[in-house]
């Protein structure tokens, strides 16, 4: 193959050199800057899933030296924000290693996929799944997902960060998060905080009246429940059971009035359905939805704040430490009020 390259043209070598130089100036310099920013911890975590909290959690797990745990907490923001690691550890045997792998905006299907990664890396003895009603809700549009083997390698530290950074490089994404990430990494006064404690929990420092009004007044809507998510719950229970581990499935407390009377029967049916799924696999639902905590302990309709999370976590710690479940399925009417 020969190309009609005349002598008056720019020589092929010069043409290539000029094109390469242009590309390098445009890509190379910003790329070097981003690599530097990442190494300094000033860049949002590589977008393994596109869910910032999940990605930041993956980075947190990668940077944590300990790659083993005894008690693994999983779930969405229900697990992330409702658990206070320190309070929970008080009621677990000394030396117990706790890891909270919860991240906000996680659907149950995503938690199931993440659980498989975490079980492969951390080999815990007990798994605590903190899951609220809203985790079962339908979401519009396709669910964001991640490559499980990539996440395992990333958490394990087996993959170098430069290729990961390159693979998930998205200029718009990094620029968009450049300032916000520094803010939410250093404050727990933001609902989207990613300021993890040593075990990966984030009890939020948000109390009434300095709350987001929309979140505060939200109500549970059982019509939004997605039947497919129950299958994912069953899949989580099967996965834990097949490994001979214990699963503790917990419904955390809910703010009074967040379950309208009109839907309480449907909500009870939801918990009964969860209980049936878990019971057939030898597990139980520990329902603390009606714990009776006052509004001071909440930062919105379903998340506890840094006053409520320790109280709930102590109970979870005690229950995890005990052998059997203390409380079977409760309903909105019959739960014990503390």
């Amino acid at each position, binding site marked *: 193959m020969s190309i009609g390259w005349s002598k008056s043209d*720019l020589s*092929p070598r010069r043409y290539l050199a000029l094109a390469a130089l242009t590309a390098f100036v*445009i890509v190379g310099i910003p790329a070097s800057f981003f690599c530097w920013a990442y190494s300094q911890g000033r860049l949002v975590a590589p977008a393994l899933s596109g869910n910032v909290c999940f990605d930041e959690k993956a980075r947190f797990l990668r940077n944590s030296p300990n790659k083993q745990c005894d008690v693994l907490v999983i779930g969405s923001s229900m697990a992330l924000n409702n658990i206070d690691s320190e309070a929970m550890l008080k009621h677990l045997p000394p030396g117990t290693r706790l890891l909270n792998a919860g991240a906000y905006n996680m659907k149950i299907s995503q938690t199931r996929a993440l659980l498989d990664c975490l079980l492969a890396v951390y080999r815990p003895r007990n798994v605590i799944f903190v899951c609220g009603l809203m985790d079962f809700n339908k979401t519009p549009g*396709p669910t964001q997902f991640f490559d499980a083997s990539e996440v395992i390698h990333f958490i394990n530290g087996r993959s170098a960060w430069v290729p990961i950074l390159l693979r998930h490089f998205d*200029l718009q*994404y990094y620029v968009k998060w450049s300032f916000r990430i520094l803010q939410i990494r250093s404050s727990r006064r933001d609902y989207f905080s990613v300021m993890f404690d040593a075990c990966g929990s984030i009890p939020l420092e948000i109390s009434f009246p300095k709350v987001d009004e929309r979140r505060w007044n939200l109500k549970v809507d059982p019509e939004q429940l997605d039947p497919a998510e129950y299958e994912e719950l069953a899949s989580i229970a099967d996965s834990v059971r097949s490994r001979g581990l214990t699963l503790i499935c917990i419904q955390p407390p809910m703010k009074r009035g967040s379950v309208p009377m009109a839907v309480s029967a449907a909500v009870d049916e939801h918990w009964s359905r969860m209980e049936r799924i878990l019971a057939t696999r030898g597990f139980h639902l520990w329902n603390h939805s009606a714990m009776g905590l006052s509004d001071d302990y909440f930062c919105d309709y379903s998340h506890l704040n840094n006053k409520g999370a320790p109280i709930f976590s102590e109970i979870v710690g005690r229950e995890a430490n005990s052998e059997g479940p203390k409380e079977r399925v409760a309903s909105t009417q019959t739960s014990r009020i503390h």
Partner: protein
Amino acid sequence: MLFNSYEFLLLFLPLTIVLFIVCGRLLGKRAAFGSLVVASLVFYARWNPPYVLLVIASILFNYGTGCLQHGIIQRRGKASRAVLAFGVATNLALLGYFKYANFFVDTVARATASSWHIEPIVLPLAISFFTFTQIAYLVDVWEGMVCSYSFLDYCFFVLFFPHLIAGPIVRHHEILPQVQESDGRLKFDNLAVGLTVLAMGLFKKVVFADGIAEHATYVFSQATAGVAPDFAAAWGGVLAYACQIYFDFSGYSDMAIGLGCIFGVRMPLNFNSPYKARSIIDFWRRWHMSLSRFLRDYLYIRLGGNRKGVTRRYTNLMVTMLLGGLWHGAGWTFVIWGGLHGMYLLVNHAWGKLTNGQRWAGSRPMLVVYHIITFIAVLVGWVFFRAKTFSTAVCMLKGMAGLNGIRLSPGFEKFLSHWAAWLPVRFAHIDFEFVAFLWLLILLPTIFFMPNTQEIMYRVRPALKQAESMAAVLWRPSPRWALLTGLALAIALLKMGRVTEFLYFQF
């Protein structure tokens, strides 16, 4: 491995070029092309290593069958025909098992309401492409159109990574004479032209196709979930998909040509501004040209083509298009898409016969009408091509027909308030983002009014059998074009964060 990944562009491609140069300089031409065969196997293995054995087995079988035909058996005799039938049947059986077994079993089970079931079979990457390439080779051997090739040449012809995964479906007489004439040395002018075409293709895929993709996906996934799109959203979604598949396939085809060019091999043209077509016949001469050619030469003509009367001709056309649809995917929506295009072709041929010799039929206004009708027909076809189920496609078509209601953004209300009562529209939020409309405003004029890559690059003809170019913008090796190439490459590299597959990889 995908062409639009950092792994390919920053690691695989540079290493392959270095290996090609070193082997060419130190060991000669055979070693240089041998290195490309090895690199192609690595390229394929990166997807799923065990499946390399399948490709190798397929190559050994077809090369062996070809040799058998060549040397031992009398050309076009009974024995030769039997060997050809056996070779083609084995290839089709392999394709049928991997690609259609699940589809067949599911269809039968559904039709008979039985619980017949087989485990899902993983579809080996590119099986449709390397199978078709080799079937064409066997038929050509049988017809005496093939001189004897070495095993290495044959491996290169089937495996060369630019066309391996998603075409073009190459013919031996296009590729192998170039290998035989080559000196196995990398030339800087080839490298410069190849990289320029590669950069253009990468830009189309990463910036244009991936940029509009999310908007198409949103509308179609909403329709799949049962949310009926209104008029604007349905048209927006279908136009977005039309742009996505256009730039996706165009980008891939450019990249294949550019990569071939780097190593001194011109690939056949596979994509030539199909939306500029003024008839469906013309569309199929411009869209996936190598597949159209394969279907014409090895299916339509073998079925009798147009030699056995009008009825037989139309039947052959329909069968060819139905099978072409099925080739794209094991699903009824693909069959419907093929059938729809078959019907379009019948109408097109019938119209051609009816208006033959009439001057008004070729007038300028009529050409514009033909162009619009062709594009709309293609869009309707894309609805079935993209929709996962028949009901989703129907839902989209209803939306396009306005049967799901017509909405206008509330911003228009103040301008149209006097006529609001008379207009069959509602003023409400449209399920199609404003930014997507902006994308369409950029992409559609680019498709219809800009020259394509091959026209721009006409001066150096990076592809085989290029038509004359009347393009106002022609590439030349100037500093300005070098800067533009670097810029396109850089923007594409920066946008390449999320690696997305080429749509034709799944076929």
